[in-house]
């Protein structure tokens, strides 16, 4: 830029304007009273808080406009606390704004960079000290130190090993086996095909023996949805068709995307929708993904009936259920 262009000049800090309370004793007194009143409101808030804590019963609900049906104890306790806190702040700020000195002052910044002298001195000292330690010369020490420090960094990693077991076949196996009965969840009752009407959906789990309750980690793999269509509505390969029974088709309920429960069934479109990320699966076409982020169909469980007429699994799932993982082969 040439020197001819002259920038607009900085007029400098404007003159200080006095507040009313600075010049008028009446205004000053008024401000003082206002601050005191604000502090007093806060004190009342604390009293309300204490009163509510001890004397407002916890099971009283009443209608409060906007909020609707409100618990009196919770509301007054909270309002008391809010008033107590807020008005301390309001008082302090009002005090600062009206009565405390409000003269703008100018302070100078210091350069953050150290003086050249100090910087040079630091370099010299650091070099000298490092030289005295012989860091540059004693390569044997340097290397062995590097080795030991590097190795000791491994110990926390080693220590963390027992955080959990290796996956093994946990991700690929479920509790479903050939002949496992399908039981309702909740209720644990075995079901017959005729219990399901066309268009109905049921959540089932594998039959569970023993006193102990099911582990959530089993439910996280075993949950299955039964859906009954009219048999002619299926558009399945003959193999997959043989996995259904009289219009009843069974899918893993655990989403093939990120493992949420695929819980929404739309009867008119025959779509299954995962509420987490909206992956949409087409039931008549073996839960093929027709929308959303999931890349795989829901695994289908092959079902049939046993001699007593209850629904059972023909065989275990033919692929891992739930979200993908590295070792999954397809």
């Amino acid at each position, binding site marked *: 830029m040439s020197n001819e262009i*002259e*920038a*607009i*000049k*900085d*007029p*400098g800090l404007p003159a200080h304007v006095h507040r009313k309370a600075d010049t008028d004793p009446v205004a000053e007194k008024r401000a003082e009273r206002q601050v005191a009143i604000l502090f007093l409101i806060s004190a009342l808030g604390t009293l309300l808080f204490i009163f509510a*804590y001890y004397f407002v019963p*916890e099971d009283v609900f009443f209608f409060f406009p906007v909020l609707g049906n409100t618990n009196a104890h*919770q509301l007054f306790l*909270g309002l008391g*606390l*809010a008033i*107590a*806190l*807020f*008005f*301390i*702040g309001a*008082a*302090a*700020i009002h005090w*600062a704004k009206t009565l*405390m000195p409000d*003269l703008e002052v*100018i*302070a*100078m*910044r210091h350069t953050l960079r150290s003086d050249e002298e100090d910087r040079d001195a630091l370099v010299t000292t650091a070099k000298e000290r490092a030289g005295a330690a012989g860091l540059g010369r004693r390569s044997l020490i340097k290397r062995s130190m590097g080795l030991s420090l590097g190795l000791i960094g491994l110990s926390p990693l080693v220590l963390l090993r027992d*955080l*959990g*077991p*290796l996956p093994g076949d*946990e991700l690929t196996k479920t509790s479903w086996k050939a002949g496992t009965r399908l039981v309702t969840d909740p209720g644990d009752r075995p079901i017959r095909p005729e219990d399901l009407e066309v268009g109905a959906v049921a959540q089932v*789990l594998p039959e569970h023996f023993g006193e102990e*309750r099911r582990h*959530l980690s089993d439910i*996280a*793999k075993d*949950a299955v949805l039964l859906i009954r269509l009219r048999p002619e509505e299926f558009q399945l390969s003959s193999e997959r068709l043989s996995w259904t029974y009289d219009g009843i088709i069974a899918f893993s309920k655990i989403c093939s*995307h*990120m*493992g*949420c*429960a695929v819980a929404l069934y739309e009867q008119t479109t025959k779509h299954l*929708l995962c*509420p*987490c*990320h*909206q*992956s949409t699966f087409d039931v008549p076409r073996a839960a093929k993904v027709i*929308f*959303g*982020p*999931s890349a795989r169909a829901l695994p289908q469980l092959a079902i049939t009936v046993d001699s007593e007429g209850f629904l059972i699994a023909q065989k275990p799932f033919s692929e891992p259920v739930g*979200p*993908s993982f*590295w070792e999954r*082969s*397809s």
Partner: protein
Amino acid sequence: MTARERVAGTVANYVDERTGAAKWMKKNLTKVFPDHWSFLLGEIVLYSFIILLLSGTFLTFWFDPSQREVIYDGSYVPLQGLHMSAAYASTLHISFEIRGGMLMRQIHHWAALIFMAGMVVHLMRVYFTGAFRKPREFNWIIGVGLLTLGIVEGFLGYSLPDDLLSGTGIRIAEAIIQALPVVGSYLAFFAFGGAFPGEAFIPRIFTVHVLLLPGIFLALITVHLMLVWYQKHTQWPGPGRTEKNVVGYPLMPAYMAKAGGFFFIVFGVTAFLGAVASINPIWLYGPYNPGQVSAGSQPDWYMGWLDGLVRMAPPLETYLFGYTISWNILIPGLIIPGILFTGMALYPFIESWITGDKREHHLLDRPRNVPNRTALGAMSLTFMLVALINGGNDIIATTFSLSINQVMWFSRIGIIVLPPLAFVITKRICLSLQRADRELVLHGRETGRLLMLPHGEFVEVHEPISPELAWKLTAHEQAPALVLADVDARGVRRAGSLKNKLRKRISQANAESIAKPTANDLKEIEHH
């Protein structure tokens, strides 16, 4: 000397003889802080952090971070007799049987939302005004770190009650870990102590939530504030303000009273929200069961953009030599957030590379005067906003009677088209505002008074603006684009000339501006 002064003197003497604090205190009691409402945003974050520590400590007195199964026998009738984890049961206990427990839970959750929102807005303030520039790059990086950890801390916090909604969130987090190539399933099993959900996760994240991360926060916030203190606060340009000075109010008493008072204001507002605004009513969700889910499952808003990205991802997986790579999880869940946050952390260095500016800056930029930066900010925000909208696509679809597919396709296209559009529009707006500033300085303020000249022409009377305002509108620098030669002094093509070319291009775009009025321009107008 009054008795009170004598006591104070004795105490001060005692402390000073052991610490030498008097010298430091003397200097810093009159330390000057510039005043502007936007400088309070960081304070809100600091105060909500303190509120979080206080209310969180209260909650730990009753919360039982355990996934051990219990049968609920508390006072909330609809859940009586149900099997649930001790974590969920104790959260119900805090909510319904501990007096003030519900209030504290709600204050804690609201404070967490304010903490996150405060950080985002504070970050925007720092970004759009250029407060991250030298010498404040360290603080910018610490800030980005705090924001990232804040997202994690918030997620862990709302996961602790082990209700149906938060359990679903944990399930999704587990799927992201599991999707990592090679080590995913191992890491997932280590994190959960076995197959999902197991019984180890809640106790573990409890330790991380109440000890590890708050400790890191405390350390980082301390460094953040010490740097602000030491480097002194930035200030807006204005009359009497330069790169070399700080104009404002001394710490004692006015600034102390204002900042201290503001803490109570923030706490008061948070308590008010906790009193009247129900948040995370976990008793309505029921205990977690991996076979169940509630429709409209939503994370808290600061995770919503991430969920939105995951929702809009194309269904892409690669199966190679018997292994699976889940791009539909890795890209939205890890790669894009990684790029966004790394880019954000590196931004001060990128900008200084573009401008070639290595000087210290203590005067803030008005966003319009740095169109490219402002436009880039608007572009990033638009990206985040589209992602966030898609994070609530189910709610939006049901609220506005749209199909979820329409909302999803809007987001999928919008996330690619809208950010660049936001860039262009914002840049144009900035330049127009610069033009308006120029007009204002040169021709003064429109008064709205019309004057009929003797020959019948109407003109509007313009009033000259104050010298203070004229200075404020022209105090900024308009640096020219970098001049980078493709060939060096001896006429040899430089290595990396492609990089040079790119830098030159960006630098030129960056320097685009409406020339600010000079004193010469003003004089010229006066002559007319």
